[in-house]
């Protein structure tokens, strides 16, 4: 009961935090027909900066971290990435009106990770004074890659079977390489390597870190405009996508919270880490996921997966998910 009250208060206050406020502001602008444009170059650069910031910091911390501590959360991340895709395969992808490969692609997107949702949670946690191991954001690829790869493999298996009943093998390695080459993972891994192997402290503290919060606000604005703009794509696909878009982020987040709690008991994974793991799982990829899936599962209709992720999944993951996991964390860990 108290949990509910706490969540509701937090939920309402949440709309005053910049991350969410800019998201809602973006939606409002788009709904109003505003001609405001954030140039493509700024969008690309903001995404790059965010991922470098997350990567460099992660790398600097891993340098000093006890690698054993990271092991369990990393394994759990991969388990979650795959688990989410399997779950979508046996639920969404089998619903009436949902083409199987569309459902699988959607599950892949929801299994993958959104850098901006993650960044928003990091900023909110910082404001709440909730601490976490700085390597937690570096769990990103451990969840993102397995989810995308598994979705592509499952879709190909399905399509091959449908076509000729044959059992053509799907090559996994090229899918992984392709995914690592994407701009998002490239930037994150570059940042990780720089943080781990070099001394980027000054450029981190003087550039990547201070601009983080501001560029995130710009990205949130873009994502809000985008969410509204894509809404009409959703009208052209089955209603189940809307249901999935609302429920999946929270279900995935709670699954991750559970696994994170186990890691807390076993290896002392921090409460903030548990919350961020839930955010990672609850988020759905917005930058590199869509083009990867579009190229690798060409027959899947992007309106279904991009619509449900961008227009519903991401707003729910940020506006409902983040405050929910924080309230839950407070109830469970009592920080």
């Amino acid at each position, binding site marked *: 009961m108290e949990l509910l009250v706490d969540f509701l208060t937090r939920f309402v206050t949440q709309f005053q935090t910049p991350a969410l406020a800019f998201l809602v502001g973006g939606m409002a602008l788009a709904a109003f027909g505003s001609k405001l444009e954030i140039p493509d170059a700024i969008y690309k650069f903001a995404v790059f900066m965010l991922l470098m910031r997350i990567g460099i910091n992660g790398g600097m911390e891993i340098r000093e971290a006890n690698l054993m501590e990271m092991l369990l959360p990393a394994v759990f991340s991969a388990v979650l990435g795959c688990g989410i895709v399997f779950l979508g395969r046996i639920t969404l992808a089998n619903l009436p009106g949902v083409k199987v490969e569309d459902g699988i692609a959607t599950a892949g997107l929801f299994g993958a990770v959104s850098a901006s949702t993650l960044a928003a949670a990091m900023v909110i946690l910082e404001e709440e004074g909730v601490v976490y191991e700085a390597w937690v954001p570096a769990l990103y690829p451990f969840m993102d890659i397995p989810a995308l790869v598994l979705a592509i493999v499952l879709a190909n298996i399905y399509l091959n079977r449908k076509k000729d009943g044959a059992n053509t093998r799907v090559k996994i390695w090229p899918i992984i390489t392709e995914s690592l080459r994407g701009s998002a993972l490239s930037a994150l891994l570059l940042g990780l390597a720089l943080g781990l192997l070099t001394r980027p402290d000054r450029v981190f503290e003087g550039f990547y870190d201070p601009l983080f919060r501001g560029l995130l606000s710009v990205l949130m604005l*873009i994502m809000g405009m985008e969410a509204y703009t894509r809404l009409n794509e959703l009208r052209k696909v089955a209603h189940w996508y809307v249901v999935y878009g609302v429920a999946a982020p929270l279900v995935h987040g709670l699954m991750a919270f559970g696994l994170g709690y186990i890691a807390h008991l076993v290896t002392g994974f921090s409460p903030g880490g548990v919350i961020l793991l839930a955010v990672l799982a609850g988020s759905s990829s917005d930058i590199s996921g869509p*083009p990867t899936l*579009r190229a690798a599962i*060409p027959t899947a209709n*992007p*309106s279904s997966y991009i619509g449900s992720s961008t227009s519903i999944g991401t707003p729910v993951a940020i506006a409902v998910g983040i405050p929910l996991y924080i309230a839950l964390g407070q109830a469970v860990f009592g920080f």
Partner: protein
Amino acid sequence: MTHKATKIVIITEKLIVEGVTKIIEEAGASGYTMVQAAGKGSRGVRSSGRPAVVDAFANVKVEVITATRDMAEQIADKVAARYFDNYSGITYLEEVEILRPHKF
């Protein structure tokens, strides 16, 4: 004096541009030119995957001048066969006149 040649134009999604240029090169064309484009067609619904609000020019228009009409049709057929079931795109041909035939 000018010489007849064929120009084939392919307007499609940026995402598959690498595949399209590979087909062009394999057909033996001497080159190609690409321009960023925005557009609307029958598949307006198929979104490109890049944020629409920041990257409206997510199509490309590829042009190839070919010495023979045959090569042009071959490129058009291959691109359509390989991609146009799943990606949006159109192709068309035009007659042009070139001045330095050895270039093509």
